[in-house]
């Protein structure tokens, strides 16, 4: 299977950091944008994006494709997304295994699905159509979820694995989302990591979440938590050097803190590589 480039260690491109990135040229290998924030007529966001993409690889990550919705695919949205992709020439385009609304409504959230054969057939068919329209392979992310459904016929990881194989799409493994959903629903997060097909994973997401004691919420407004770092190590050992980035969307820290988290990833990966080469010797 064709594989996507390994871009290294990236961050979410957020306006609050624009000036610092431009003035300091920090050691970030690539940036991920929220596609919808740039699906606008013109102005500063697109002008800034042009400047960043001259210096860094860009990946487009969307939140509104509503892949699992039973509403018809929004062709106007997909047309606008393709137009942005044609302009930005991203390394790849991703969105979520989720739905955002039905009956023409949009709840602007990533909503959960039952892991049923019906839902699988539905999502697979839609990913295929999206890939035809975008003329590129889609990268699909596992979302954080807060409810699961009694109708589910398989665990999430089996659904994700079958989806990727049948739709011939790639996967964005959000390590924090695996942890959050695993905690909320009580599933084995290691089983999730171990079951996802290794040759389908093109990217990792890392992020912080909020601990409400009885449940976790994927808020992207905290440092990455220790348990997620542990899971990251497991994912890194299994999936090798796929591209990784940190999502930070609120409670923005000094940029240096995010660079520190990226450095921690590099250190973990270097230690894994070093151990592997020692074992091989």
């Amino acid at each position: 299977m064709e594989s996507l480039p390994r871009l290294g260690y990236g961050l979410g491109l957020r306006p609050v950091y624009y000036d610092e990135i431009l003035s300091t040229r920090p050691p970030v290998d690539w940036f991920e944008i929220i596609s919808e924030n740039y699906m606008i007529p013109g102005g500063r966001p697109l002008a800034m994006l042009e400047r960043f993409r001259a210096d860094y690889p860009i990946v487009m990550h969307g939140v509104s494709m509503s892949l699992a919705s039973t509403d018809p695919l929004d062709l106007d949205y997909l047309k606008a997304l393709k137009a942005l992709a044609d302009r930005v020439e991203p390394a790849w385009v991703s969105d979520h295994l989720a739905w955002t609304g039905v009956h023409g409504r949009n709840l602007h959230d990533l909503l959960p699905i039952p892991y049923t054969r019906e839902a699988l057939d539905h999502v697979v068919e839609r990913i295929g159509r999206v890939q035809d329209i975008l003329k590129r392979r889609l990268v699909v992310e596992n979302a954080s979820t807060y409810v699961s459904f009694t109708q589910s016929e398989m665990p999430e990881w089996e659904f994700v694995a079958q989806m990727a194989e049948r739709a011939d799409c790639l996967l964005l493994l959000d390590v924090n989302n695996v942890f959050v959903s695993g905690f909320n629903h009580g599933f084995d997060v290691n089983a999730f990591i171990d079951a996802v097909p290794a040759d389908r994973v093109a990217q990792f997401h890392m992020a912080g979440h909020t601990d409400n004691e009885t449940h976790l919420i994927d808020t992207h407004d905290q440092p990455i938590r220790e348990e997620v770092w542990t899971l990251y190590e497991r994912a890194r050992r299994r999936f090798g050097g796929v591209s990784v980035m940190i999502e930070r969307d609120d409670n923005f820290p000094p940029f240096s803190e995010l660079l520190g988290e990226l450095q921690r990833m590099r250190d973990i990966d270097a230690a894994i590589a070093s151990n592997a080469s020692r074992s091989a010797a």
Partner: protein
Amino acid sequence: MKLSELQSLFQSAVLTGDAEDAAILDIVAPPRDADRPTMMGVYVNAYRLRLAEFLDEDYPALRVLLGDDDFEALVEAYIDENPSRLRNARWYTTRLPEFMQESESWSANALAIGLALFERALTDAYDAADAPAQSIETLAEFSPQDWPCLGFTFHPSLRLIEVAAGTLDAYGAATADEDEARSAEEDEGALEDRPMDANESETIAIWRSDLDPAYRQLDPDEYLALFEAMEGQSFGDICQLVAFQNEGQSATERLARFLVTWFSEGLVIGVAEAK
């Protein structure tokens, strides 16, 4: 249960804001530690919080003018009556000024509506389409006898609004630096209570200059001239339509002076003989 039915039930619970008694709970699996309404409540709460955040981001001065309680009441009412049908959240907040105009609770507050219209225009100017501005030298391409026939096209970000008198003052007070803002908040009541002729208004042009929104209050004659020019009227027609006889200047001279300003502000993106 079919996927479509499940999604309808789920959405209904979110839109009605009822996580306690929602029918969807019958098919929600037991969470690990929390109870099912709590977990469903994550989606219910996030929905309203997210939409409120969009409004907060686009109307910061309106929040200061109204005060937190009234602004939040407005936001709640808007969310209740305006479930989003938009794929991109960027435009969710666009209808707020019209919502206020149509609402019994806010339609009498001309200053608040004016401020909402103004802040919406700023937001629209921020990401309106790009177009290179023309310099005034463009006019040199036309002979003086062609001038009466010339028409102009303007930057896609340019908006003209006619709003309640005091709108720009209210915006200035709300967006002043922190100390000034505190004092403005103390004066907030005074600003709202200021006696105002319902017919009293001010006219404002809003556009994007380089990459940032810009605005300027217009005198009534410049507003009229710019309005007509944006409608495609020719230089000669605007001179005839607008009675520029104040300050002892001829209509042509006065309009020429406006044109110089419009060019210097980057508002003009095209000059051609009007059809």
